[in-house]
């Protein structure tokens, strides 16, 4: 199932920061992770992922560093900054209360979510 653009606009950055909070990742890894860990719900088009990363980097929510990957090739690894952590906490709270509210209305079943 695909998520509507407007929703994706809000969810995309949160998802990306959430993933990067777990561990630092480079672009291709991130694409695969977004797709596999969300059953494709948050699978982001490549044309938008990289611009999104640059945008978050500009806002100083993430930081990219070039270093050698396991394969021996150099990759740009992105990690969450302190500012990004704080932002993520706020977003998590908001999403939590939004989902809670939706559940309270009986519109969604919270148990069906992964994670």
């Amino acid at each position, binding site marked *: 199932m695909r998520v509507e653009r407007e929703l994706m606009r809000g969810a995309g950055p949160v998802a990306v920061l959430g993933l990067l909070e777990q561990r630092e990742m480079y672009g291709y890894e991130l694409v695969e992770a977004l797709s596999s860990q969300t059953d494709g719900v948050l699978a982001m088009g*490549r044309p938008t992922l*990289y611009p999104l990363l640059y945008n978050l980097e500009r806002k100083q929510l993430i930081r990219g560093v070039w270093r050698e990957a396991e394969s021996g*090739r150099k990759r740009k690894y992105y990690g969450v900054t302190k500012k990004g952590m704080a932002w993520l906490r706020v977003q998590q709270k908001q999403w939590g209360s939004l989902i809670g509210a939706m559940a309270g209305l009986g519109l969604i079943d919270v148990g069906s979510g992964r994670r």
Partner: protein
Amino acid sequence: MHWTGRRPQNGRREDGLETPAIREERLLAESRIPDEVRGYLRAVMDSSKLHGAARFDVLKELVAHFEDGLAARRTAEDLLNDFGDGELVGILIRRSRREARWTPRRLGRLGNRTADISQDLGQAIRGLRRNPGYTAVAVLTLALGIGANTAVFSVVNGLLLRPLPYPAAHELVLPVLTKPAEGVRQGPVGYADYLRWREETGVFQNVGLYVDWNLNITGGERPERLKGAIVSHRYLEVMGVPPLLGRTFVPEEHERGAGRAAMLSKGFWERRFGGDPDIIGTSILLDGESYQVVGVFPPEAQWPREAEIWMPLTFGAVTPDWVLEMDARGYSVVARLQPGVELSQAAAVVDQIARRAAAERPDTRAGFGATVIPLRTYVVGENTRRALWLLMGCVGFVLLIACANVANLTLERSLGRQKEISIRAAMGAGRSRSVRPLALECLLVAMLGGAVGMAVSVWGTAALAAVAPAATLPGIHELGVDLRLLVFGLGISLATGLGFTLAPASLVAKLDLRQYLTEGGARAGHGPAGRRARSTMSVIQLALSVVLVLGAGLTAKSTMGLVQTDPGFREEGVLTMKVFLPHYPPDSPEGRMEGQVYRAFTERLKDLPGAVSAAAVSALPLSADGLFDYLPFQAVGGVEPMIGETHFANWNIVGVEFFETMGISLSRGRAFSRDDVPTGPKVAVLSESFARELFPNQNPVGKRLRSTSSVVSGDPLEVVGLVGDVRYTDMADAGRNVIYVPQSQSAWRAMAMVLRFEGDPGERVDEVREAVWAVDPSAPITEVRTMAQVTAESLAAPRFATTLVAIFAALALVLAVVGVYGVVNVSLRQRYHELGVRKALGAEGGDIGRLLVGQGAKLAIVGIGIGLPAGMALTRLLSGLLFEVRASDPAILLGVPLLLGASALAAAAFPARRAARIDPVEALRVE
């Protein structure tokens, strides 16, 4: 280290370092990605327009992405599909990185918004620079529209809106007499009227009476003619300003036989006396009499406007009876309204009083009423005022057409930019944010157009002032830039920006982005909505230009009529001038023969080589100042006229050879001769129209008439001849009643001389002056002009108006035709494929051409269909300004649609010809 400019072939700079381009290529070459991906990445980077380290960083990351994908055993094709349009990816990357440059970090929301706008503005500027063609055409079109509007507005502003230089100038009015039945809308006033208006109305704070009174000042190198006025007591109080220097007239100075006093204008005081503060109390010589200067008139009270000297009216305490005669009407009145009194109220009051006078004295006052004219209207003239507003309407239409044109261009351009707008929307920009760069671009174009337009208007205003007849547009040479004008210029530019932005923007905002994404964008938005918008715009242009061209056609026809009108005289070879006799002391030789001085001038002038004939005249054709206004006459011995049937005629004193010199045709009887001596029987020559009115169906020669006015002597005049009608005030003034009397029997001290030469009279000016001064060196000479110049000046105003309207109409027509061309041309581009298919299926080139011409024809028919009735309704406003042309002139009503239609078809024919030659093979390939 320095950059040498050209990149060496080997990819190394002279200092041995690698160029960025080479570095990129090396990265691509050393990566493990197939050629198609390399090409794709080059396209992405090109469209990203990034530079330096940031660019290399992004490329490195994207290469890594593809390497990882290939390593994960995905195909290159699969990976490329994931990314999609390379150009779009590049633009998205550019935008995500570029924003960093614009956004101030800690300025909060406001800062972000400003940053957004400045970012969009930057984009708009780049967009315009990328399309110099569009920008130039749009800016120029608008500049013409805005420039023309601002130029005309600066005239309207200077002449109609800016207050006259008097304190509370809106309160100043001129009460005048009217005679609706004879079309007299602002006739001179009687002294008795003045007294009643002053005493009985209660609507005026102050009422002043004045008579234009010009006189000669001597003592300088050459005698000079001064414009002045004789004014009633407390005249300055009407204007509400104290004298600049000295005092105003005291009651004793208004007594008959009092010592002569004068006030000078500031300009005259400075020009003639160098602004000498000790001028008060000194004497100056006017018309041979000594006047004591008592004060200097303040410039902000200077009325009449051109007056340079004021003298007190000296009737004394008891007004003489003859002055109180209701038919002695040679005065003007200026009054200041009580605060809060409306114009209409004051007009009603003075009219009521005049009607009462008409009831009391029906013999001389039947049919007279009165009204008040605002000073401004009097200065500018009602016709000029209307003409100026109409002109403002004309240029307004031109601007609307220009807007519609630019709107069409912009629409074209914005439809070509859906890709960008889709990208913005895809990145989550709201609708307004998506359209904003476009709107900003339009606003920029409008502002640029406004700036260039202001320059155009400065030039246009100067050009207007240079060619405008100063007589019709007094003050045209003193137009300045003021706040109102600047606000107008800015406002009109902004309104224009809004005007031509709204249509395209709303259309773009409605675009279906999915349609763009699925169809690749090539044809999206060129659907019916776009076509309709373009056609509507074109129809509006056509309709507006129909109105303008109609107006121009009518005005031109009217002016042509004026030019071709027979003025009643022959102007070739005639030179004219005004000569003013000094007041000779009664016992001097000149004084004893005062009446004969003009005859002496005449004889002297006739002695000049090449001179054919010469004469004096009190009222020169086509410049009727000096016509003794409207005297009542009746036939002697006939039936006494019924009350209210008095016949009025203008009194013109002429020399013996006047008719011959002016080439005025004698239709009956004889002209004046030397035998018409002062002591002989009084004789007159009538204009044909007056003779017809006074002696219907009779031969007037030998008949006698006399004036019922006490202003001229009551002796009966014998009609000795009849001459053709002559246009006295202007070309449009036909059949004025004129009674000519010989100069030998009726002296007048301010006359014009007319002189017929063989050959060009313009070269004889100096000789003529010297000849006059040989007779009397103290007689001022003014307005030396050939009769051809007099005629040209009288036609200057209508010619000027016609030229302006014609220019604006031509501009409108060209813009509208370009509009039609644009619509058909776009249609050709969009239907290229379809037209190719038609041709491939066997359609002839002619059929295809006709298809497009048909589209132009449809636009023309609808445009004309709307414009013609609108034009007929609007041109009715012109009717009072037209000469012998009705607003519903059939030739114009037929010709204008034909002209517009033919122009529209011709505009459509260009793309149609190209369409006819479409190569079906090529057209089919285009899809």
